[in-house]
């Protein structure tokens, strides 16, 4: 019999690792709607987004609004406001305001269309994969960032829509 460098411990360790890699089907998953603002990727929880609207929905400008409130849209005979998320979050990088995508977002108190640059994906991620936001996060973003998640080797900032809309109604942005 020839010696073999593999040990039982190695095999067990490998199997333990494999077991760790198996997704716990009982673990709660969260749906995320991932989108871009400029070069950065963000996400809202799927439960706060009821619809992704097709590109090209005309936005009617309404005078007297802050620049972050792009106007309103006619959504099947209902009027919805349109908020430019990049402006609300005071993101310094360039974001477009003409060729983006609209998400229809809602929280218990209100709803609004949300202007983002592009929708990348809608995915389910295990709750445990959402990491606590770093302490280095800019102060003005802290109330709205629920966490970070890695998706396709990219860091996604998960946003909490409820406080964002609530604060926006009261004068944020």
């Amino acid at each position, binding site marked *: 019999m020839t010696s073999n460098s593999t040990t039982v411990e190695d095999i067990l360790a490998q199997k333990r690792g494999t077991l760790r890699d198996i997704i716990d089907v009982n673990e709660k998953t969260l749906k995320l709607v991932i989108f871009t603002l400029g070069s950065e990727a963000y996400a809202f929880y799927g439960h706060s987004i009821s619809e992704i609207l097709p590109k090209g929905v005309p936005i*009617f400008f*309404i005078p*007297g609004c802050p620049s972050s*409130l792009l106007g*309103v849209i006619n959504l099947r005979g209902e009027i919805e*406001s349109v908020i430019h998320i990049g402006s609300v979050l005071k993101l310094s990088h360039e974001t477009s305001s003409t060729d983006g995508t609209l998400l229809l977002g809602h929280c218990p108190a209100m709803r*609004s269309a949300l202007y983002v640059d592009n929708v990348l994906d809608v995915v389910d991620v295990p709750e445990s994969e959402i990491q606590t936001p770093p302490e280095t996060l800019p102060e003005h973003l802290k109330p709205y960032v629920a966490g970070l998640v890695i998706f396709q080797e990219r860091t996604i900032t998960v946003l909490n829509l409820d406080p964002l*809309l609530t604060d*926006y109604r009261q004068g944020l942005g």
Partner: protein
Amino acid sequence: MNDRAGVDMVCFTAGGSWPIMIERRYIARMEGYVDRQDNAIHSADCPVLTIEQLLGFSSDQMLQKSRLLWLKNDEILNMGLIVSEPVELKKVIGETILPLPEILAARCRLPGLQAIALMDDTLSLILSPFLSRV
């Protein structure tokens, strides 16, 4: 209330492009063509503004002929409003009159903006001239 019921609206544009509606019940009378520079119309007992001034637009649109709408509140003559022709009276059915989305209502500072009318994919701003929006 029947959604097909109509509301008489006086319709015109402001700033050259914004379709505006004001309920007919607020209009005491309409005077013929007026010269916006005519001091005589500004010496009346109540203030006379152009619609652009009322809405806080940066510049007056010195467009075609203008009309002077005398607005009343509780049957008291309250304000003169100079608007550009054409000025039309339309019956707007209730189902086309939509409330302001909550965020728009909270953040828009357009004086008097009360609702939006949506007809044939055209959006009009319904103003209640005596509604304060601060």
